Each structure stands twice: as structure tokens, then as C-alpha cells.
């Protein structure tokens, strides 16, 4: 087996076959599926969920994960927070010529481990190799298919004034982990990405708890952008309290240095949810049973419904409130 990926690995011939056999099939445990041009999955529910996402992270390996783990967890979590039970995902790879096969193997292995944790099969895939300089190492696209939970219980139409807003843990960990992993930053922090599959935690909530109105995973754009989108989509005013939002000290410190706002940093293993306040304690307790939900807490309330435009207000420690908006443009580190 060659050490690096070459353009010939993408030509569909012997080398492609070798790469698929040696790297992908070995990790993903494909059997019969590989004999057809499509994978077959048994769907019994009438309502299905489908999601797709592409992953172009730099660096490919970072504290707490790699692009493969991210690609699987991201797609599986998107299904799970929509109230679906993930069944299978596809994985498309665009690989830059010269990429180390040993690194590809690590990435694929991560994907297999995360998929296994969720009981999800990686059912189909595609591999393309592009000339050096046409891609940055590896890009991965994953598409996920799931069936809606039998209770189908997410009911955003029942959001009421007084409902609780819960975050499942500390925010900004993934954003800072990625930034500190970029060698040029030289940030001395041991923050690990929170990148994790949340399927079991969410399934447990869906199976045994009532009162979850809506869930989102606050990835790109962070907690603030997710909440702003929810408020606009479902027409409510939310007020969150700055002092209750869980943020690690080192994430706080790194944000101060770089001029970033943790509310806008990406997360890859968190859920923000709006719940019936009478079920708040029960839901928190259930979240805390899991490592990924250990720091779960209430961060605010819905203060008005039927607000056609929808907005999110942040209560500051000085007792003032200011409006949160979507992330504007790119996060760029400041000069001093």
C-alpha cells in the first residue's frame, strides 16, 4: 500500500479499489452494501429526516478530535436535535494528492468509532482525489438519514412565555480548541473540542421526558446565532443572563486576548433547548447523567411570544440588557 494518496487513487481503477478496501471498508465494516451502486436501508416510519453537511476544518487534527469525528458527530447531531433517530450516513471524500494514507486511516477510524457509538452505519461513500493545491488535505461531506422518534414530540408551536432556555454545557470550547491548534496562534491552552455524538443523551430525553419544545446544536455562529435564528423562526423574545452561561475560564481568557465573544464561538457537542419550566429540573437531571451534559443549566427564559420578528436579549452583570444579533462577518483576531 502506498504511503500517500496520488491522483491515480481517484481514477476508479485498481488503486481506488485498494484504497477503498484497505482504508474505508476495513474501518466502516461494509459487507453486502459494497456490491451495489446504492446502499439499502429499511425504513419503516412514514416520516424521515435527511441532513447534509461538508467539513473543511483546518487543522485536520485538533485537541479532542479530527475532521472525521467532526463529520460524523456533526451530521448525527443534526438529526438527533431535529428529533430523529439517526440510521445511516454517507461519506464523500475529496482528498488532496500527496495526503498521507496513515492520516486518512486515522480520520476514517475516528468516523467508524463515532458512528459505532451512535449505532449508525456508514452506508455509502465516494472518494475523489484532486491535484495538489486544489484542496486543503481532506474535505468530507456527510449526509445523514434518520426516522423521526416515535413520540415525534418536539413542539415549537407550544413555546410559551416563561419557558426555560437550557444549554447542555460550557460554550466556545470547540472554537478555541481549533484556534489554539493552529500553530501560529501559540495559545497556551489545553481546551479540548467538545466534539461528541449526543445521540444517547438526546434519545434518553426524548424517550423519558416530556416538555421539550425545540432543540438546536449551536455549531457555527455559536449560541447567540442559534438563539437568534430560533427566535426569528418561531417568533418569540428570549432573555438570557450573561452570568449564568457556562464558560470555561481558559476559554474566557483566550477570548479576552483575541477579542472574540464566546457567545459566537462554534460548539460541536452542545444542545440549546427550550423546555416547559415545570419539566426543567427533570430535564437538567437527565442531561447531567451524561458527560456531555454535566454542566447543563438554565440560562434564560422566553419573555414574550407572538413577536413576529423575534429577538434575543442578553442581561449584563450591570443589570442592563442588550440585543444579540447574528454573527456579523468573520471572526478575526484583533491586533492588541
Amino acid at each position: 500500500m502506498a504511503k500517500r494518496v496520488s491522483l491515480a487513487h481517484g481514477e476508479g481503477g485498481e488503486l481506488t479499489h485498494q484504497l477503498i478496501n484497505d482504508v474505508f471498508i476495513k474501518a466502516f465494516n461494509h459487507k453486502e452494501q459494497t456490491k451495489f451502486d446504492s446502499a439499502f436501508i429499511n425504513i419503516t416510519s412514514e416520516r424521515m429526516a435527511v441532513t447534509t453537511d461538508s467539513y473543511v476544518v483546518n487543522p485536520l487534527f485538533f485537541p479532542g478530535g479530527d475532521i472525521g469525528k467532526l463529520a460524523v458527530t456533526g451530521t448525527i447531531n443534526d438529526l438527533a436535535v431535529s428529533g430523529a433517530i439517526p440510521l445511516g450516513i454517507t461519506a464523500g471524500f475529496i482528498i488532496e494528492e500527496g495526503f498521507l494514507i496513515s492520516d486518512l486511516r486515522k480520520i476514517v477510524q475516528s468516523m467508524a468509532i463515532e458512528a459505532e457509538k451512535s449505532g449508525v452505519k456508514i452506508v455509502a461513500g465516494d472518494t475523489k482525489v484532486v491535484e495538489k493545491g486544489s484542496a486543503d488535505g481532506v474535505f468530507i461531506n456527510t449526509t445523514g438519514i434518520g426516522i423521526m422518534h416515535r413520540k415525534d414530540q418536539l413542539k415549537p408551536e407550544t413555546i410559551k412565555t416563561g419557558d426555560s432556555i437550557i444549554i447542555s454545557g460550557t460554550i466556545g470550547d470547540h472554537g478555541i480548541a481549533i484556534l489554539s491548534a493552529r500553530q501560529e496562534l501559540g495559545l497556551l491552552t489545553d481546551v479540548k473540542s467538545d466534539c461528541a455524538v449526543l445521540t444517547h443523551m438526546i434519545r434518553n430525553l426524548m424517550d423519558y421526558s416530556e416538555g421539550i419544545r425545540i432543540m438546536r446544536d449551536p455549531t457555527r455562529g455559536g449560541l447567540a446565532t442559534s438563539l437568534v435564528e430560533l427566535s426569528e423562526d418561531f417568533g418569540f423574545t428570549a432573555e438570557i443572563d450573561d452570568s449564568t452561561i457556562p464558560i470555561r475560564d481558559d476559554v474566557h481568557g483566550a477570548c479576552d486576548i483575541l477579542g472574540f465573544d464566546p457567545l459566537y464561538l462554534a460548539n460541536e457537542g452542545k444542545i440549546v433547548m427550550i423546555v416547559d419550566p415545570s419539566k426543567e429540573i427533570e430535564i437538567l437531571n437527565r442531561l447531567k447523567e451524561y458527560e456531555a451534559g454535566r454542566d447543563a443549566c438554565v440560562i434564560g427564559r422566553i419573555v414574550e411570544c407572538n413577536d413576529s420578528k423575534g429577538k434575543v436579549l442578553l442581561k449584563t452583570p450591570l443589570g442592563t440588557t442588550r440585543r444579540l444579533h447574528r454573527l456579523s462577518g468573520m471572526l478575526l483576531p484583533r491586533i492588541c
Partner: protein
Amino acid sequence: METLNLLSDPVYAKDSVDAVIHAANRFKEKYGRKAVLMEVCGSHTMAIAKSGIKTRLKDDVQLIAGPGCPVCVTDQESIDSMIQLSQESNRILCTFGDMMRVPGSKFSLMQAKTEGKDIRVVYSPLDTLKIAEQNPDKEVIFLGIGFETTIPILALTIQEAMTKRIKNFSIWMTTKLVEPVLRNLLESGQVKVDGFILPGQVSVVLGKNRFLYLAKDYKIPGVISGFEPVQLLRGIYRLLNLLIDEKAEIINDYTYAVKDEGNQIAQNLINDYLMPNDEGWRGIGIIPESGLDLKEQYARFDAKKKFNITIQKPKMTKCRCGEIIRGLISPEDCSLFNKGCSPINPIGPCMVSAEGTCAAHYQYMREE
């Protein structure tokens, strides 16, 4: 750790607000108007907006932003020059992140990068030396912007380049000094300021004593403050008390970081490698000896001397950043604010920078 916890303690913060409002009322009783305080530093502007201090104190104290954001005061000519330099394929241009979107006369560095020019974001000027070593066949040029906080590391970078005998590296200097611009502001008489919240990190380098001229020459008090909301509130409180007691003094309220004499090592680095020059400030124009250039013996690292480029006169827009950085108008007074000028499509640098007054208003004080 206890001090740090105190700085974010909401109860302590509320007590600090009450104390400031009490002092502000005493000022109003004595002078029949609100006190006008200028925070010189862009990071202070951002912290004041983000924490809610500006909103909370709007009826009690007039807080205005000063010319202390290094991105906001960088002249269009410098951006235009860098874009012109990037046209040659054997050049790598490096800059700080928030300079990428600052508009020049026609384009920003970000737009030039999307057209395929090799323009890279670095987190420290020292990183550019690694890039120069890794690319010996290319010229690596750094856009050297910043106030006294950043200037010592530019000098250090020159020192390192000499030690490592790196020849394919140069800096396009467009640094700024705080004292000349504050003197210019006060002598222009355009804005009436009762007192200054002085920049914490610039003071780490310069020291408290380098701000005594404000009290001595202009009879204006100042307080050197840290960046946490509680520190800023205390700075405002102490400044109001100086004004009530009619004391033109400079107080160092950031003592664990700022010494009277400043950081001697950083100052020596500046003095060894750099000399004063007449610098152009965006929206203000040229202020004599308000920046620093490389000394003659280091001309080989000076991009202005190393490369021959012709700069056109910058195109004028309706952007009023020049008045905003001098505290003459508020961002909402600019006809472009949130109407064509936003962080996604900034017309002026005050909307680009993480420390810019317009960006602070847009992000933290905008209502729709």
C-alpha cells in the same frame, strides 16, 4: 483568582454603577451639565459597549470614544500600498486579522486575497520571519500597524531578522503614537473633554509618567484603567472625583500592570530601531512626529524604501470615521451607519475593527 472573581461579580458591579451615578450627580450639581469623558483606547470602547456600561450610564456621563483603535486610524494609502505590493507574484504579504477587511480606495486586502494574491493573517509579526525562512525565493512584507503596545514587537522582529540574517523580509511601517494625537485633538479645540480614561496596555509600555503632560499642559485629569467592566467603572468613578475636586492629576488605577516608568526593555527596543516620522491618520491627516519609522541603518527592512510603488490619492467616501475617532460625532450620526455600512460590508475602518467604535455600536448597542 479572588480579584478576578471580584471583577466579574454582578453584585460588586452593581455597587460600582451606583457609586459612579452618585459621583456623576455630584458633578452635574456642581457644573450644571454631564461630564464628558473620553476613552482613548479601542478595547475600552468595546468593553464599555459590550458590558452595558455605556447604556447604563447614558443619562449620567457622556462617554465618547477616542482615536485609540489602530485599525481605525490606518490610512487608506497603507492599504492601497499593500494591495499594489501584492500584485507581484513573488511576494507574500502578512497582516493582523482585523486589517483584512479594512477598505482601501478600491479594495480590501481580503478582496485582493480572494483574487489569488498571497496575503496571510499572522498573530504576531515574529511569525512572518518563519514564513520568510520557509519561502527564500519570495519577499515577505508585513503591514506594521499599531500603537505603543504593538510597536516594541515590530522592533523585536527587526532584531530577530538581523540575528537570523533574513534578507527577504521587510515592514511597511504605519505605526501611531498616542501623545501626538491627543495633543492634536486638544489643541484643535473641536471637542471638549473633561477627562481621559487612559489606555491600559499602552501604559504598560509607556508608564504613568508619560501621561503627566495632560495634567500639566492641558489641566485635564486622566485615569489609567484595566479592561474589565468593574475596573472601567472604578476608573470612571475616580476620574469624576478628580473633576469634582478640581484636581488635574493622572491616576494609575492599573497598578499591577503599569509602572510609573513603564517597560524599559520595550522602550529601549523602540529607541534602538525606530525614529519619529510624520504619520498620516485616517480621517485626520498628517500629524507631525506622530508615528515611528525604521532608523536609516535598518533601511533594508523598510518596505517603503525597498519597493518602488506609486500611491494615488485616496478616494473620498461619505464615511465619517475621521470625526468618529475624534469624538466629534456618534456612529449613529453617520448617514452610512447600518445603511450600507455594516461589519459584512464595511465602508470605513471603525466598522471593521474588533475595537472600532462603529462595530461596537453595531454589535452591542444597535436596535432595529
